[in-house]
């Protein structure tokens, strides 16, 4: 199998999407009969180019972060560049990888439906969407303990995809859990979120020379 991997992270340098993709690829490559090409798109020119190489590929994985509950604007520009290929993508297999900061899978479900609908418009085969929350800070080297689990999971998905040529929905669901947070005591929830804000975000403010009060600035009024 030859796999085209498109990385749609709009970030300029290091990005969480590529960290996940690297692990996916190391799993995918475990057996030697696979080849892959990776294409990074984050400019107008690369969005247009990506559409062309997408059309020529047989197997494609499109990976990007969740922005505002859907794809980043640039990835949408890429999708718009696919307009000439509507109903012309028979035989092509397409899967997706979405990663983001919030923990729960539910945030990406509407987008997942949209991505399936795009495959329908193009008339290609929709393979599925790998959804993984809790990925914020991976590329800043934060949350090391949890990162190991996130990376091991994507490695296994890559490995199994390399063997079978398809995604196993049960495996994807297991990887993206929890769907929503378990019901918890409101007091306990308050303590947990206080701790996340204190030790994750406030630490990040401090690193940038911003104090807690300044972090709440309202530069545009009110």
């Amino acid at each position, binding site marked *: 199998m030859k796999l085209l991997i498109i990385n749609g992270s*709009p970030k300029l340098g290091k990005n969480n999407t590529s960290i996940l993709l690297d692990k996916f690829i190391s799993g995918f490559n475990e057996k030697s009969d696979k080849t892959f090409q990776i294409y990074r798109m984050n400019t107008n020119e690369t969005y247009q180019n990506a559409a062309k190489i997408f059309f020529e590929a047989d197997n494609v994985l499109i990976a990007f972060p969740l922005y505002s509950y859907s794809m980043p604007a*640039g990835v949408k520009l890429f999708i718009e560049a696919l307009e000439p290929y509507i109903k012309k993508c028979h035989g092509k297999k397409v899967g997706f990888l979405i990663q983001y900061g919030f923990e729960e899978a539910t945030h990406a479900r509407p987008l997942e439906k949209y991505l399936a609908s795009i495959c329908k418009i193009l008339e290609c085969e929709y393979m599925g969407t790998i959804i993984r929350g809790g990925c914020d800070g991976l590329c800043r080297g934060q949350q090391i303990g949890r990162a190991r689990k996130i990376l091991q999971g994507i490695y296994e998905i890559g490995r199994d995809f390399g063997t079978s040529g398809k995604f196993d929905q049960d495996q994807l669901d297991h990887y993206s859990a929890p769907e929503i947070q378990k019901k918890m005591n409101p007091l306990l929830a308050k303590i947990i979120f206080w701790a996340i804000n204190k030790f994750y975000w406030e630490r990040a403010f401090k690193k940038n020379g911003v104090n807690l009060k300044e972090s709440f*600035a*309202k530069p545009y009024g009110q």
Partner: protein
Amino acid sequence: MKILIINGNPKRNYPEFDLYLEQLKKIGNEKDIAVELLLLRDFNLHDCIGCYSCWLKTPGICFYHDDQELILREFLASNVVILASPIIMGFVSALLKCFNDRLLPLGHPFLYLKEDKMAHIPRYTHYPKTVLLLDDPKQEESNARTLIEEVYQRSSRELRKIFTTKNKIQEIIDEITHY
């Protein structure tokens, strides 16, 4: 009462959509409602690159000092914002999505639990009510409106309704001025 229309139509060869919005502004103004119409494709807007500067380095202010600053000020000063876009490949335009992505400075990174899932706390006290205004989907995009609604119900703090250019302009004005 101040209404802001954000026109995310990227296509110069689709003037019907722009004309509908110009009519909306005109009819609103005739009724003494302040209606502002911004044509996004005439603005200089950089895509959000997820750098978090607006959260961690210069709270509330984007790394890119482009026209979005002006738009954010207008946005916060409005009672109702109409996000307008033709449906392209089953979703709102990349142009309107660019504007949406660049709303990040209006939030604060702190998290809280909202209906069993994480959410960010607001930075400002008040946000405008939001409606979407779409055109008619093509046949192959028939479920686009439902999908767009599902996404925007989560991403917009105050989404009230989705209109289409099939709605009578008067109906839209009557409804949104009562929010």
